[in-house]
């Protein structure tokens, strides 16, 4: 079933031992939406993304991807993951492979594309993120910003429908944040569905179509950036924004 709703998350719960990190998360993500997820450290933002990608197994609730429950026993997790890409704070490029190979290996081994096709696709997306000059470089030879752009190209090369970003710029030196955010902004404009955990409030404000504020394992507020940043309804949101925005100055 192909609908405009990409994700429907119902009553999602995640416990780590006795610690309930996600408590009854409900949200829907439609095609083409760019959802920024903000919130204090430890509020469960990463855990939510990791549950969506099934890097963590949710304790309870359901995650529907185009109407199919990804937690069902017979759900094809591997093919699902090719459609839902993930970009990590620490880049996690494959250290033993060149930039080009990083973007090809998944296509060849998982999507079973030919080497030639995989290369063409990889080059196309490396071009898009401005990394086509570095196809032969190894990850250790790249700056943080370059690594993150390659990581984005790696996800795109799988022709994914959604990318989950977990603080993609938090490990970067300040002067490299801009280049990565620019790539992400272009992706957002191209219509890619994106869920972005971020501390970059400017990005959340300018680029996203929706902002989700998480507080202690629940979604405390979920609204347009205008509402969240100008007239938040939840006092916790106001408090949080006041704290982070003033820290920036």
């Amino acid at each position, binding site marked *: 079933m192909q609908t405009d709703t990409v994700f429907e998350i119902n009553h999602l719960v995640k416990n780590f031992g006795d610690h309930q990190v996600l408590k009854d998360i409900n949200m829907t993500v439609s095609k083409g939406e760019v959802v920024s997820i903000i919130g204090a450290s430890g509020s469960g933002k990463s855990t939510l993304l990791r549950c969506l990608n099934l890097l963590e197994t949710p304790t309870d609730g359901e995650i529907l991807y185009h109407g199919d429950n990804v937690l069902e026993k017979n759900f094809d997790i591997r093919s699902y993951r090719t459609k839902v890409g993930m970009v990590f704070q*620490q880049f996690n490029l494959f250290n033993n492979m060149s930039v080009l190979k990083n973007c090809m290996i998944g296509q060849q081994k*998982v999507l079973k594309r030919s080497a030639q096709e995989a290369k063409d696709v990889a080059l196309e997306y490396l071009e898009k993120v401005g990394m086509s000059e570095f196809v032969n470089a190894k990850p250790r030879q790249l700056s943080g910003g370059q690594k993150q752009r390659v990581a984005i190209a790696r996800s795109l090369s799988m022709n994914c429908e959604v990318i989950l970003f977990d603080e993609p710029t938090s490990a970067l030196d300040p002067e490299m944040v801009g280049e990565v955010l620019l790539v992400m902004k272009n992706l957002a404009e191209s219509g890619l569905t994106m869920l972005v955990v971020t501390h970059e409030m400017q990005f959340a404000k300018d680029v996203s179509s929706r902002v989700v504020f998480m507080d202690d394992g629940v979604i405390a507020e979920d609204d347009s950036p205008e509402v969240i940043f100008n007239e938040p309804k939840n006092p916790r949101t106001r408090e949080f924004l006041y704290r982070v925005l003033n820290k920036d100055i």
Partner: protein
Amino acid sequence: MSFFESMSKVWRIGAKQLFLGVGNTLLIALVSTVIGLIIGLIIGVIRTIPKSRNKFVAFLRKILNFILSAYVEVFRGTPMMVQAMVIYWGYAFAAGGKTLPLIPSAIFIVSINTGAYMAEIVRGGIISIDKGQFEAAQSIGMNHFQTMVHVVIPQVLRNILPSISNEFVINIKDTSVLNVIGVAELFYQATVLSKMTYEIFATYAIICVMYFILTFTITRLLRLAEKLLEGKSNYTIMGSQSDPKAEIHVRGEERRAD
């Protein structure tokens, strides 16, 4: 007769025999190290299989892990000399007195012994790989086997290369215990020779030097190989697609990814 006269006598009579021993020692050590490494890698891959949601598969995995742990513990916890006797004569006992050919037996014994050590080395190597590498591989849909073969094992091999070399050198020395089952490696040849010439001290002094030359040169060679494999960090920036000759060669500094 002086010591040097004794040595030259032994050498004259037995050089050929000793070199044959060196050949067998090297053959057994090399092949067994490679097979041992493969055993270690396979065990490493099996041990890291994520827990299945299927109860039966999870149960099978548990049993397999138990067997593998038992194998590692037993072979690390007993002397190879004893293992050689038990395996060689154990087979003969079970086969009604028929024994296995010696060199293949030797390779078998040293391989599974090395495998037990390699399993631990590989395990350490896998643990030292950043969790993010596994997660990135998973996140693009790779299964456990693909993740291990394409992402993890290549990095593990690079990291454990010094330990692999070390195992090889240890094996060169430790094949000497195989004389108990009569494998014609260097130590066994020396024993035969010393009985022939009655020059016990001179004979063992000679093979002492021979062992040292073997391990010393091989250690240096492997160290050199490690250096080379550690990688050229040079790479080429493709200048332009219309002019493939427009390449800029960048010479990166030698750095280890860690």
